């Protein structure tokens, strides 16, 4: 059996075993939605990293560096900021609040069903925008490595997710996510070790790539125009070589992506699963350490890939299979091709399993966040307020199936969409809706219900407009991530509407005392 099949089957077998082993822990709402609040920093930190490091991160960041050079690493640089800002301002207080879902925070801060409902819509929007590219990427990986059709790939991924989250609940999901992040991390460490063993020194590689100007021999066979690809090392090595057109666009990317993480519902709700605020803070730190190391290795592997491609093509030592993968495989093929060159089919097998681990890990977090929004926020608070504990759990599990079907349809609809566009939309909506609400809701007593609702509505609408109708904007404002406009706009909306309204909940001091209590007493 080929290693890629073997490792993928081992991964699927492990997922099934963990899911069945944790089935008994998903019989109450606390167990199903927040894993009994029993995860220490090691497990939850790994799971947070698993939620954050999607397939786009595992395969895409090295691929972007390979093709865009500095613009690719700048993109990663913006992604690396968010978890730290989240740890500084939100992680500890959020755990002390200690409920089940992201909309719970707003509903309880303002005692407002309306705020809960708007928050549910925002959770579903962000998660949908984020899940679509994950499903798209997962189905493409299945097409590339196993030759399945796109549709079959979508159905397989969604089926695994419904089983994984619906049966295992938060307990099974967290353990699976933690295991999966270490599979990916392990694959990266082996690749890193292999590259260092081959003497691929970072500075030397960058020097060789930067000095390469001209056609890349042997690539004509795989290009549409039948001519060799032309590499421009100088352009590759500095900003403005591919994505970023001006400094304002770069700034907008920093703001949009750094604030975006604060508003990602599947990351936020992970802090409810720790037993204490102390564990939540340590979890965040551990997740940041994993993610930062992961990002740094991904960027190095992108450089290694570029070097192996250029030098291999020049010397004629690249196999036709690897040369073709570099030229027409797209960004997702760089890490697998480097693995194939460095460690042969066994390392490639580990990387393929790692890619699936990334898809499952990230999607399962989104499934849990959305099932909470439907099963807990909508069912328990709007449809059946007197639901029994068993009915609440069943509602959560039925929500997982509904979300699975919806995500499956979404996955089929976005086959031709741009992954970067959808991920950017998810981050920007999160940055312009939940980020202002959580930052101000945690630290400012003056925020009112109307301020929060208007902030979310304006943030959501302005993000969607500036991304979907980008062509209607002046050229200098046609950015991939419009955070520079939409994030301050949302903050200002919350502030101005709250100031005009002036009516805060009468128990806001008690709420602040709860989330900012001394950890000694807590």
């Amino acid at each position: 059996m080929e290693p890629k099949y073997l490792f993928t089957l081992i991964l699927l077998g492990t997922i099934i075993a963990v899911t069945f082993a944790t089935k008994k822990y998903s019989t109450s709402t606390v167990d199903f939605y927040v894993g009994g609040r029993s995860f220490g920093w090691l497990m939850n930190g790994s799971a947070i990293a698993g939620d954050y490091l999607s397939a786009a991160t595992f395969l895409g960041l090295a691929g972007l560096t390979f093709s865009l050079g500095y613009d690719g690493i700048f993109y990663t640089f913006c992604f690396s900021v968010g978890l730290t800002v989240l740890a500084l301002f939100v992680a500890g207080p959020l755990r002390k609040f200690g409920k089940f879902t992201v909309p719970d925070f707003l509903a309880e801060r303002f005692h407002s069903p309306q705020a809960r409902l708007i928050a549910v819509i925002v959770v579903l929007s962000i998660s949908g925008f984020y899940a679509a590219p994950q499903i798209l990427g997962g189905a493409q990986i299945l097409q590339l490595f196993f030759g399945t059709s796109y549709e079959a790939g979508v159905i397989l991924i969604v089926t695994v997710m419904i089983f994984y989250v619906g049966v295992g609940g938060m307990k099974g999901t967290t353990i699976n996510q933690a295991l999966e992040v270490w599979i990916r991390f392990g694959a990266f460490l082996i690749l890193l070790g292999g590259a260092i063993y081959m003497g691929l020194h970072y500075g030397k590689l960058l020097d060789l790539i930067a000095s390469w100007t001209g056609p890349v021999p042997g690539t004509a066979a795989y290009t549409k125009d039948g001519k060799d690809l032309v590499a421009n090392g100088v352009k590759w090595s500095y900003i403005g070589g591919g994505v970023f057109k001006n400094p304002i666009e770069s700034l907008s990317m920093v703001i949009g992506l750094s604030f975006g993480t604060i508003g990602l519902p599947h990351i936020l709700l992970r802090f409810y699963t720790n037993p204490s605020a102390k564990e939540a803070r340590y979890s965040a730190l551990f997740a940041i350490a994993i993610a930062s190391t992961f990002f740094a290795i991904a960027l190095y592997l992108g450089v290694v890939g570029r070097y192996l491609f250029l030098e291999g093509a020049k010397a004629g030592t690249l196999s036709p299979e690897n040369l073709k993968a570099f030229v027409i495989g797209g960004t997702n093929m760089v890490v697998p091709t480097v693995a194939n060159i460095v460690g042969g089919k066994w390392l490639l097998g580990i990387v393929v399993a790692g890619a699936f681990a990334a898809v499952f890990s990230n999607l399962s977090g989104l499934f849990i966040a959305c099932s909470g929004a439907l099963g807990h926020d909508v069912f328990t608070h709007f449809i059946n307020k007197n639901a029994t504990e068993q009915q609440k759990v069943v509602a959560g599990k039925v929500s997982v199936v509904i979300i699975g079907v919806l995500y499956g349809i979404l996955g089929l609809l976005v086959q031709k969409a741009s992954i970067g566009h959808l991920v950017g939309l998810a981050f920007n909506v999160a940055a312009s809706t939940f980020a202002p609400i959580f930052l101000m809701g945690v630290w400012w007593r003056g925020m009112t219900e109307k301020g929060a609702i208007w902030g979310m509505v304006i943030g959501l609408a302005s993000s969607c407009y500036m991304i979907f109708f980008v062509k209607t904007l002046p050229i200098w404002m046609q950015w991939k991530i419009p955070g520079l406009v939409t994030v301050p706009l949302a903050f200002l909306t919350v502030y101005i509407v709250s100031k005009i309204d002036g009516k805060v909940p009468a128990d806001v001091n008690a709420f602040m005392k709860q989330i900012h209590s001394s950890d000694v007493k807590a």
Partner: protein
Amino acid sequence: MANEKVGTIDYKDLPPLDEETSANMSEEVKVSVLLAVVYFAFLLTVTIMNWTSPEIMKTVLWGGMTVTWFATSIVAMFMATFIAWLHVLYYQSRVSKNLKNEKGA
């Protein structure tokens, strides 16, 4: 707590927070804002200098490793963890201080 009829109050009529919560919030927000300012100063400096001072950012440190490549792909990753670690260190010292105060009281 959700959906209870607790009513609203004018923000200007809101009584001040109790001493302990106020102190906790004030101490934590000061440290968090300070660390965030340092962090964002670094991030924005790299971002802006890439466009305004390319000659400095393209300075080679070793091999082909330039200042901007080093800052963006290595220092930034280290810094994300370092800032979060400082925050946790501060948190540990605050908890120890609170414990001492509680024992002394």
